[in-house]
């Protein structure tokens, strides 16, 4: 028996210009175990290479929602199953 930490498959969604820059609306994958916060998640996106490196270059301009609730850079990802990336909102 190994004490391996396993993570669930998460749905990553990309909206507005992040959808355009990544070229995808969504993807399903298992996040590396070392990623625990939103800020770490954003750095990881940059490290993935093209097209994510360019899309996530200005990470301070990118907002994140965990299971459809706004999150902050320091927020723990916890057991979130749906993570969305998007620019600051401009509705109304």
């Amino acid at each position, binding site marked *: 028996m190994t004490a391996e930490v396993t993570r669930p498959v998460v749905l990553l*969604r990309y*909206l*507005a*210009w992040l959808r355009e820059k990544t070229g995808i609306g969504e993807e399903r994958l298992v996040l590396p175990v070392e990623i625990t916060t939103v800020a770490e998640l954003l750095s990881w996106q940059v490290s993935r290479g093209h097209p994510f490196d360019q899309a996530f270059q200005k990470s301070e301009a990118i907002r994140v*929602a965990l299971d*459809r*609730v*706004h999150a902050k850079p320091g927020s723990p990802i916890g057991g979130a199953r*749906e993570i*969305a990336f*998007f*620019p*600051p*909102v*401009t*509705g*109304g």
Partner: protein
Amino acid sequence: MSVRVGPSDFDVSSEMVQLTAGDTGIGGVAIFVGKVRDRVGEEPLLTMTLEHYPGMTETELERIEAEARDRFKLSASLIIHRVGELKPGDNIVLVIACAAHRGDAFAAAEFLMDYLKTRAPFWKKEVLANGVARWVEARESDEAAASAWQKAR
């Protein structure tokens, strides 16, 4: 209290009549309508396309509405936000706040708009007459308006 998100236009008058029907305790109704402006600076605007985050948008609008109910004495409220391609003069958003007195109605309508503009997951993309297509950038003044409510509390 309800929220609606979709491509359809709205009729302000019938929405208000429906919202206030049967509640004669309502003494004031504040209505805000946001519309598509025909130009960006000097440049004429051709279209404005509203994208949103299906699944989160409605939930977030309900959270905003719940917070307004918590802060103000509201009898009824309504938020309608359109998505899809719009043209100059088209309606974008409708906020109606009903209360016994005008103070709560005015303040709640403004609060709902300030929070909606900084929290509800909508994004605008403009296409200008000169061929430029661009995503609208968030304005710091909107963030400041929403933050002011937190200080006011």
